[in-house]
């Protein structure tokens, strides 16, 4: 065999022995350094205005959208029978201006004595709700500047550099392992793949430094996941590393573009309609021009490139689901969204893509619950899914087979349980520390770099490292839960929650499906699985999480605070 480097056998063996311990230790260190600031930052509300009540009380307004009403869930509760449960919504805009919108109240909302539906507020305007008079007093620019300076800082720039250095060391060590074990032509493509990741992570970091953004933890973890995915591809299909690397670069671009759209709430709201149309459009195009692979018609082949547009539809769906408070209190918007979801699900059903349909359904649940807060609605939706599921199993028996083998894979190790049993065998063979690069044999099993990539990573890099890839996704979710508390607009809260949920659900279905804890659905592992569109989709979703990060100078998807009164 033609190896790239003619290293002595003992040296290779010793190096792999070292690498087995080194990778989990470095990964744990990296994860700890990235996760701690994300999970422990002080969540302090930003105060944007004061609401002066007739009794002299000043109520702080801590979000850009504030519901005033009788119900306990309102942000400002006025317990008077003349006030409707959701009476009015105060909204702040990017430029610091405010409006008040009547939320279909019985008594109406009055500004300076005039009954209004929606009205721009000037400082000192008298607002009257159910007979209670109040005045909105926005904070001054100077106060705003002071507030921004006092906010919890994201990690210092040096922390980001150290984290990224750690990741780069990890990548280089892994690459060296491949160099010792790979054949010459394979190694060149592996080098290109890893090199592409290293280059894009530093480019993004430097770009952040230029635009004075400091939080790079989420990105570092995402690049780590991409690295592990690249390692799996390097073993399974070394000829596809370059393709995956290109997808990663495209993904980062999409991440930046979506983040840029989300920066400006008004722009994002306009862009939302385009996204809604694109979501359906992607699916329709696939349905018309798509190719059927393995039972699901969800592939589009253009010039020999195979795309899975439903992965991009997920990002559009998250966009479609987001909404601002003034619209949320209006029930009609939810029905529109339900109708939209039904269209999407119907399209997926026709495409026979049940794995993706399940992800959309879960995303729908998250959005519907966040917007309505109604457990009853969710129960109804789940019941509907149950019926639809039974119907689907009648129509598509191949889906039923997955359920019959579930938790019985060892009884059917040669057909229905083939991939899962091989995955478990190889996870066990790899142990906690793995067999090293190119040491695995799962690569010969179908979809070793996508549907069962968790097992491929576990076999070669160890169960510890594989579990830590799952922990990365968990950290994304936990961070999202923490940060949406202080998000400015419900548009960002809903977007971040849904995006993080989609990442989480895909990870659940992929990893737990591989190890036979859940039925095997063939869903991709975000950032890790081989697949260009899946990679782009994952980065697109991460942009929504970034947009909810309001720590000082943390996120490129959030505008910098104004400096000394200068206009942004």
């Amino acid at each position, binding site marked *: 065999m033609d190896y790239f480097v003619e290293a002595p056998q003992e040296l290779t063996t010793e190096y792999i022995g070292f690498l087995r311990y080194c990778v989990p230790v470095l990964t744990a260190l990296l994860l700890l350094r990235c996760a701690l600031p994300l999970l422990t930052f002080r969540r302090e509300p930003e105060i944007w205005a004061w609401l002066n009540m007739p009794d002299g009380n000043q109520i702080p307004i801590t*979000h850009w959208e504030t519901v005033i009403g009788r119900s306990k869930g309102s942000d400002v509760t006025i317990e008077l029978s003349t006030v409707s449960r959701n009476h009015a919504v105060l909204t702040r805009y990017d430029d610091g201006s405010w409006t008040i919108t009547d939320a279909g109240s019985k008594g109406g909302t009055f500004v300076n004595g005039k009954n209004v539906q929606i009205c721009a507020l000037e400082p000192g305007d008298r607002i009257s709700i159910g007979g209670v008079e109040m005045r909105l007093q926005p904070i001054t620019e100077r106060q705003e500047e002071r507030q921004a300076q006092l906010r919890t800082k994201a990690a210092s720039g040096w922390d980001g550099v150290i984290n990224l250095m750690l990741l780069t060391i990890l990548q280089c060590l892994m690459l060296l392992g491949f160099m010792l074990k790979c054949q010459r032509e394979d190694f060149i493509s592996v080098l290109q793949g890893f090199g592409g990741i290293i280059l894009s992570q530093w480019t993004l970091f430097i770009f952040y430094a230029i635009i004075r953004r400091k939080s790079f933890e989420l990105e570092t973890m995402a690049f780590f996941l991409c690295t592990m995915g690249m390692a799996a591809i390097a073993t399974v299909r070394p000829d596809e590393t370059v393709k995956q690397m290109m997808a990663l670069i495209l993904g980062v671009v999409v991440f930046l573009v979506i983040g840029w759209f989300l920066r400006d709430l008004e722009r994002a709201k306009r862009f939302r309609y385009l996204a809604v149309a694109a979501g359906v459009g992607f699916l329709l195009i696939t349905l018309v021009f798509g190719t059927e692979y393995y039972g699901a018609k969800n592939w589009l082949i253009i010039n020999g490139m195979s795309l899975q547009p439903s992965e991009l539809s997920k990002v559009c769906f998250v966009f479609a689901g987001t909404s601002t408070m003034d619209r*949320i209190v209006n029930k009609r918007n939810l029905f529109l969204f339900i109708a939209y979801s039904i269209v999407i699900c119907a399209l997926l059903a026709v495409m026979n893509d049940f794995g993706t349909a399940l992800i959309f359904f879960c995303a729908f649940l998250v959005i519907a619950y966040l917007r309505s807060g109604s457990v009853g609605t969710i129960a109804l939706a789940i019941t509907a899914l149950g019926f639809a599921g039974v119907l689907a199993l009648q129509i598509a028996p191949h889906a039923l087979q997955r359920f019959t083998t579930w938790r019985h894979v060892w009884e059917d190790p040669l057909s229905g349980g083939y991939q899962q049993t091989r995955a478990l065998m190889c996870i066990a063979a790899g142990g906690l520390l793995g067999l090293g690069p190119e040491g695995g044999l799962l690569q010969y099993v179908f979809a070793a770099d996508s549907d069962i990539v968790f097992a491929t990573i576990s076999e070669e890099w160890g169960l510890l490292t594989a579990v830590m890839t799952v922990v990365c996704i968990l950290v994304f979710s936990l961070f999202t839960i923490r940060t949406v508390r202080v998000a400015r607009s419900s548009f960002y809260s809903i977007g971040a929650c849904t995006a993080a949920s989609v990442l989480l659900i895909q990870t659940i279905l992929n990893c737990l499906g591989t190890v036979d804890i859940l039925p095997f659905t063939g869903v991709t592992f975000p950032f890790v699985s081989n697949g260009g569109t899946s990679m782009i989709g994952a980065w697109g979703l991460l942009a929504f999480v970034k947009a909810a990060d309001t720590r000082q100078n943390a996120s490129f998807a959030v505008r910098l605070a104004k400096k000394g009164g200068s206009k942004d």
Partner: protein
Amino acid sequence: MNRITKRTWLMGLFIMILVGGMLFFLGEYMFCASDWVIFSGSPHIYNGTNIGFGTVTDRSGDVLLDLTDGRTYSDNSLTRKSTLHWLGDRDGYISASAVSNYAGEMAGFDRVSGIYNASGEGGVATLTLSAQIQNAALEAMGNRKGTIGVYNYQTGEILCAVSTPTYDPDNVPDIASDETGAYNGVYLNRFIQSSYVPGSIYKIVTTAAALDCVPDIEQMSFTCNGKLEYGTEAVTCEKAHGTQNLKRAFANSCNCAFAQVAELIGKKNMVQYVEAFGVADSITFDGITTAAGKYDVSEAAPVSFAWSCIGQYNDLVNPASYMAFMGAIAGGGSGARPYIVSNVTSGGKTTYQAKTEESGDLLSAETAAVLQSYMRNNVQSVYGDWNFPGLSVCAKSGTSQLGGDQAPNAMFAGFVQNEEYPLAFIIVVENGGYGSHTCVPILSKVLAACKNVMDGE
């Protein structure tokens, strides 16, 4: 806004599913990973249907099979043939279950390192077999079909277990288009996978039962006129043996006398003794469960019951299982359980070491002692002690009738009494004709080889 942020608990639900599922999986990994890794078809352990990993040696350390890079058998053609049924073939027709049973130990699996430590060189499984004895046994069998088993009834080590016909895996004959019948059942390991009509070697079982349950049986005498009639049917001998005591009848292998002994024992007792001795049961060692024997007289007429005590009727025994019974008699009522894998090492560590297990008392010490003297008498007075120089062999022959125009199977079972050669054996030669005539020369060569090997250790 507040109400939306409060509703994010829903995400906590998904987080709990992922964390719970992962923890559940890690628990499964803790308890089941050692089973997963050696499950049939495991890519790191198996190559097709057989284990594809490590090295298998005989008791003296001679490499029988190297699995590290494909399947490299011994460089001795005779050894390749004589050990094939324990090592498995390249095409997966013969499965080496004993070796596969220790796949995990050979792989040196542990939960932390997986199979990493052994992935370079692979583990070594040492069999209790001796290639030298295997080859002697194969040569003695010639091109006859059957099996020879010899084991140490004090330790349990199987020194010899040959199954014929066999073939050279490095020079595979055209088995599929063979029409001579020379390769009938070639993929079968007859020692563990076959059951045979025992014929007169079953008289050992009947004698043991009679000694135990019929008072003063040794003082009784039995008359043989060459035929004992049961209505229209009869139990017959080749000649009239006249009047004999039990010991003489056993040496003469007198069917008529044993038909009378059978009546004295009675059906109910006989069934209980067969069960207690375990001769109709399968035995289990190293992950192998042998074929079961059979003793079913629930619908037997008196003549059939009589034949069942002579090892005919519908009686069946498995060679390995019957050999273990011989070991129990030799051991004074209890013998070691046979096994074939001596130890497994992986990455310089011993990952498996066989331990001697006693069968427990199958028969009383007194009965065993009398049986020993009877079987010793057989060799001295009938089979010829000179065939086994330096060994005090105890045995019983059998010529099991198969019906039709098939030549009978030649059977021979027994043990060596010498303290330094504690060996029990069984020989089956299919269609081999008269038991002692066929088997004694074979046994003579095999025991000589055993003695030679044991002297060298």
